[in-house]
């Protein structure tokens, strides 16, 4: 693979679609974890429910439907089933908090995965093969297939972003944020905490189901092994690294983490080795080869070590609870920003 291939649609499109899927997952987890302050480790469970509901609907649809209708209906079914899953899991878990909630949601996600692993109706552990709707994936239709999924996924990302942003900026959103800050105090000022906890959980689960349905329609093969705890940790990492309660931070962290993860697998890793080869120094060549082999074969360890270092050095994530335009760096670079404007308008401070 050469450098120019990086800008090839065939190469880039699947990665961009996957970034879109991860963005929907991370943004919806940010609503549960970051804004509502409920520590959920079970997002991969809702993801799996959405993917399997959509896939099973397409495979086992009781009556013949045209492709586009089936496609849209599968998304709807995925979202609804994941929301239902969120209701079933969320309501009993509302009594729990902190680490207990994390472990309980993790337990639910594992139960879902184990059930799917033994559920012959959806082909158990072999994985469910889903026929492509709208555009069949074949060498001739590759470009249109990728274009369609790229546009569709990113439209859905935009929808997710706008819906969650508007929810957060509404009065309901302020109630949800008050849960994170202090549950008892928000109860005292009359916030119905049960209602808002369920609301946050349902919306989060629903969007995870949407991501699952897109995933199922894009890959055409889903298996229980795609939804292990490792996937859940990856999503959680995107949220925590971006800053719990910062949507732009989540977006940035998703791009960075996905790219870093993929970079470990790329051919581009041999650039240092080639450069060292130009110098002609044996020692440098060995060193670069060692680094490349390490990054290539042991990237899981590199990733885990990176994760630990990030968590220890910047536990609040990139932006903390702020959005990108509220950070000091952004203001220094571009000036203004919402708060600065407000200060100028009221004539308070510089």
């Amino acid at each position: 693979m050469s450098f120019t291939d990086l800008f090839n649609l065939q190469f880039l499109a699947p990665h961009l679609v996957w970034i879109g899927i991860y963005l929907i997952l991370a943004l919806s987890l940010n609503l549960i974890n970051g804004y509502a302050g409920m520590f959920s480790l079970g997002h991969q469970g809702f993801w799996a429910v959405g993917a399997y509901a959509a896939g099973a609907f397409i495979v086992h649809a009781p009556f013949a439907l045209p492709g586009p209708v089936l496609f849209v209906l599968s998304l709807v079914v995925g979202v609804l089933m994941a929301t239902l899953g969120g209701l079933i899991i969320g309501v009993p878990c509302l009594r729990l908090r902190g680490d207990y909630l994390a472990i309980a949601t993790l337990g639910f996600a594992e139960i879902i995965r184990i059930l799917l692993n033994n559920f012959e109706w959806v082909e158990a552990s072999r994985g469910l093969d889903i026929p492509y709707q709208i555009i069949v994936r074949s060498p001739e239709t590759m470009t249109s297939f990728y274009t369609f999924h790229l546009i569709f996924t990113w439209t859905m990302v935009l929808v997710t972003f706008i819906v969650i942003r508007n929810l957060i900026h509404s009065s309901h959103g302020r109630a949800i944020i008050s849960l994170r800050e202090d549950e008892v105090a928000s109860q005292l000022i009359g916030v119905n905490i049960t209602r808002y906890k369920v609301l946050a959980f349902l919306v989060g689960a629903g969007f995870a189901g949407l991501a699952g349905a897109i995933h199922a329609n894009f890959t055409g093969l889903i298996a229980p092994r795609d939804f292990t705890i490792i996937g859940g940790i990856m999503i959680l990492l995107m949220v925590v690294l971006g800053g719990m309660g910062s949507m732009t931070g989540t977006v940035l962290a998703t791009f960075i983490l996905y790219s870093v993860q993929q970079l470990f697998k790329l051919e581009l890793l041999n650039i240092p080795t080639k450069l060292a080869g130009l110098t002609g120094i044996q020692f440098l060549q060995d060193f670069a080869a060692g680094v490349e082999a390490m990054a290539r074969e042991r990237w899981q360890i590199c990733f885990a070590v990176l994760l630990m270092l990030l968590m220890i050095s910047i536990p609040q994530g990139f932006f903390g609870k702020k959005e990108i335009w509220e950070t000091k760096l952004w203001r220094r670079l571009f000036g203004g920003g919402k708060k600065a404007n407000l200060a100028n308008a009221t004539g308070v401070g510089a």
Partner: protein
Amino acid sequence: MEYFVEQAVNGLSLGCMYAFIALGYTMVYGIIKLINFAHSEFFMVGAFLGFLSLHYLPAERLPLPGDLPIYAGLVVAVLVAAFGTAIFAVLCEKLLYKPLRGEGRIAALLAAIYGVVFALFLWAPISSSSGVLALVLLIGGCWLILTYLPKYTDRFSRARSPGGRIAALLTALGLSLALQNAAVWIFTATPRAWPEAKKFLTWPELESKYVAPQAPGTQDPPANPIPPEASPTSPATPAGQDPNGAPAAPDASTAPAPASTAPPPASSGMEPTPVLPKLDANIFHFDGTNRPIDFYKGQSIGPGQQAKLDKLKAEHDGLYQEDPFSTNTKKIMVFVALMISGALLYLLVIHTNLGKAMRAVSYNADAARLMGINANQVISFTFFIGAFLAGIGGVLWGVRYGKIEPYMGFLPGLKAFVAAVLGGIGSIPGAILGGILLGLTETLVAGYGFSAFRDAVAFVILIVILLVKPSGLLGGFEGEKV
């Protein structure tokens, strides 16, 4: 009824395993409120340490006088695993979890990671060209980090607040993943047979099973593949060794070509002294040549591989005896070990000053500090105890189930946490009770037709107990502070 009793006994011994891990979980969670996901990897590390100990120091190789019984090797393995794992866990705590509490030095962690990464990954390629430079880079790098980095990182760490619980949890998860993958790299993902539990085939059996017969007259006879080295410490032949198995006396029927062309040097004039085979291959996988024996399955021997095969033969012949413990003995062993450890741990926590300090730190760390308790030391000691038990548990797992692998810790670890919650987190009898109950339930569910769902049972129990009685069966009531 007989089936039920059998299943119940199996469940009891499985539950004892969970209890061993759950004790560490419950103590660590009790004292710093952190779900230490890496604890299940301490269990795995313990199992592999015991494995290495049994491999390199079986009973007949122990530097002790007299004819030692076969379980002496196991006792040594338990000690090695328990202390090795405990020290390892304390190091992890000092380097990783202490900075998370906002107390340790990030520079120390960075130096440790640099050292480990360098030693593991970069040592081999560099030392091939310049060993001294590699050494300078290793030591110099650590020194540079430790000397110059604190200037920047300490200012930084004073400014930042200690990470929240989610950061701590993710760090523990990261450590868990790193240890798993490091173990996969060192030992490969292939499950390893526990040395004592598997009766290895003798060479003739092995050859007839795996290696296609060779035409006689193969060139390249091995020039003394295993130099017979008389062990100075233990001249006795291992008990029950097959006389044909000693590498000093190869039999002509198994390897006709080399035996006829190159008589082993041990037989030249002298009485063949019983020697112990060299034990440096087959465990590690560093250069890609020391593959496990299965690598040769179904392959015919090329001329160049003869020496390698002779080496394998020497390693495998007469090295391992039949499993010295019957299955029932193992079950009793696990149960007795758990009961003794649990009782000692209970005495330690309830009746010693150290235990009192642990309870104090668990109740309120800041108040305990004001009373003159060194909270950091107490937390380190808690990790020591927890990992000590996990190490013992790892060895017992190997003995009981005869197979270890790098991912062995993950699921038992999760279930052990469930057991700790079930019994009431922070309670020692609770962890033992929870572990045993969980093991019993799981085995009975699996035994009566639902074996596919045995892993789901633990999580169902977890959710039920969290909803019905979140403080656990033996846990006290925790009031809510506003």
